[in-house]
């Protein structure tokens, strides 16, 4: 986009309507051909001493944040609003309305700013004609202006309101067939009028920046729809998370799988305790205080449970290292949904020994209502936990996928393929 030029502002002047005498701003340059009085609807010929050409009374001014005479910076260029055109269209059976503001810049000429359902776009005439594409075909490619657009929709635009200075002589109700193609944040339109075909290049505008640039306080309803050329701009935090997720998800998953393969541990002791209420113990040597030890308890409880008190002591010092409890519970049955199970007949406990040495684990039923089934105790050393790495991989993957999903949903709403278009 262009910047760095001194464009100055349009010269302020006014002229009296040749029909009703009301003072009207004259802000446009000499190429503007018509002036439409917002008081009496008179259409005057700027190139023929403001001769009255037509008159449209009682036109309803369309909604929009701007008014003739406002100036603001777009793409580094000062633009002044010199005219307003209301448009109605029926697209796939639904009625739509939007407001086109005729912009004028002494250096860049005439262009349009459009307010449509809370979205703002800028359009300008282009001579970069389409290289491909003829008739409208949904999502068909259309190469133009150095870009590859996708055809978006076709409709007939009808003028519903006129005001100010315009570059042609319009008539209320004038209709133009329009083919729109998109490559967000840009759009390309082919406007097929009765006597000529025009081509327009559009850019989606940041609403807050644009309203501020024209000195308008944003008190308007927020956009409820996705505009055809609105870019998908996720939050910076989500974007950063998704980028990190894309990198870390496969790394974490690979590391977790490697640890899962080699980190199952080495069995160093096992014992079967036939009577859990009498209790029993298992002794095992540990040569490292840096690696995890896993105690696995298996008891074939069925529709019952068993709870155990456990004590870990250092055989060399007779010091109690830890006292803890835990248990197994397992239920199974069948209901109207079919067979079901709940709980597990296996429980595992992990600890890091404070020092190398010989250790004893004592196990005894810790609740008088516990099952009496025998239990098997198995001790493994050099165990590595992969659960957290898998969780990290899952979270990273979720962040990555969630951004993609949001983008896909945004595109679905853009193309009107999402029924839920209200949020």
């Amino acid at each position, binding site marked *: 986009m262009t910047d*760095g030029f001194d*464009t100055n502002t349009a010269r302020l002047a006014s002229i009296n309507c040749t029909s009703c005498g009301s003072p009207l701003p004259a802000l446009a*340059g000499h190429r503007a051909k018509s002036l439409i009085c917002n008081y009496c609807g008179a259409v005057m010929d700027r190139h023929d001493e403001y001769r009255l050409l037509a008159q449209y009374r009682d036109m309803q001014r369309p909604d929009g944040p701007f008014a003739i005479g406002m100036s603001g910076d777009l793409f580094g260029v000062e633009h002044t609003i010199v005219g307003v055109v209301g448009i109605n269209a029926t697209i796939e059976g639904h009625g739509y309305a939007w407001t086109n503001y005729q912009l004028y*810049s*002494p250096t860049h000429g005439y262009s349009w700013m459009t307010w449509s359902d809370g979205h703002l776009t800028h359009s300008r005439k282009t001579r*970069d004609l389409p290289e491909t594409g003829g008739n409208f075909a949904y999502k068909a490619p259309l190469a133009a202006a150095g870009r590859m657009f996708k055809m978006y929709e076709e409709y007939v635009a009808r003028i519903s309101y006129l005001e100010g200075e315009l570059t042609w002589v319009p008539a209320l109700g004038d209709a133009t067939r329009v083919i729109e193609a998109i490559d967000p944040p840009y759009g390309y339109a082919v406007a097929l009028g009765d006597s000529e075909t025009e081509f327009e*290049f559009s850019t989606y505008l940041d609403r807050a920046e644009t309203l501020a640039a024209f000195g308008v306080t944003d008190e308007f309803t927020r956009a409820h729809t996705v505009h055809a050329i609105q870019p998908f701009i996720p939050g910076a935090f989500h974007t950063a998370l998704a980028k990190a997720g894309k990198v870390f998800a496969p790394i974490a998953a690979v590391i977790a799988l490697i640890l899962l393969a080699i980190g199952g541990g080495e069995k160093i002791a096992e014992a079967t305790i036939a009577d859990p209420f009498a209790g029993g113990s298992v002794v095992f040597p540990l040569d490292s205080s840096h690696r995890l030890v896993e105690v696995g308890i298996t008891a074939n409880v069925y529709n019952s449970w068993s709870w155990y008190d456990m004590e870990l002591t250092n055989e060399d010092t007779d010091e109690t290292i830890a006292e803890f409890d835990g248990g197994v519970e397992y239920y199974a049955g069948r209901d109207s949904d079919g067979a079901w199970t709940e709980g597990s007949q296996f429980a595992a406990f992990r600890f890091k020994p404070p020092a190398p040495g010989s250790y004893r684990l004592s196990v005894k039923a810790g609740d008088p209502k516990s099952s009496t089934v025998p239990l098997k105790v198995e001790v493994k050393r050099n165990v590595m936990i992969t659960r957290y790495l898998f969780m990290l991989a899952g979270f990273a993957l979720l962040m990555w996928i969630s951004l993609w999903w949001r983008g896909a949903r945004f595109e679905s709403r853009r193309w009107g393929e999402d029924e839920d278009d209200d949020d």
Partner: protein
Amino acid sequence: MGFDGMNCPNCGSELPHAVTRAKMIACEYCESTVLLEDDALKTAGTKGVMAEEPSLFVLGRELHYRRESFLPVGQARFSYAQGWWDEFWAVDGGGEGVWVSVDEGEIAVERPYEIDIPLRPDRLKLGATVSLNGETFRVTEADHATCTALRGEFPETLHVGQTYDYWHLSGPMGRLVTLEYADGEFAASEGVWVDPYLIRSENAQA
């Protein structure tokens, strides 16, 4: 031989250095335009009053458009029925001279165009079709223009007050041909439209 080291025959001031092989140059110090003819300088007329208007094109400031660059060195202002426009004589990146037509953001870069058939001004009505070099054009604008002011240097003789007829012909794929008719002769140029929003000055940000 150029204008270097020569003085204005009207006021005696040193004439500016000519960037191109100019035939005419406007004296910076007096109201004269100076013509170089057969290695001799002649005053060609007055340069008129060039009212300052906002413009992307400023003499001596290079502009870039896509892969091309333009250095405006001469500015001629013309009036027509609806207003006025500027014709800038500019040097492109290849050192060739081009005319750049600037009318309220409507900008066209024009180069000489050979026409292969005799034309008659009375047949170039608005809306008429014209076949040139195998292509069909339509007359989209027909008007009279008068030169009102000159600044800088030019490859041909221009006179303030000089009037001529012109026609804009629109062809396929946005082609533009401009015809000018003065003193019983046609001159033609082929234009390429330029998007003002893609023009950058040499000091503008990328």
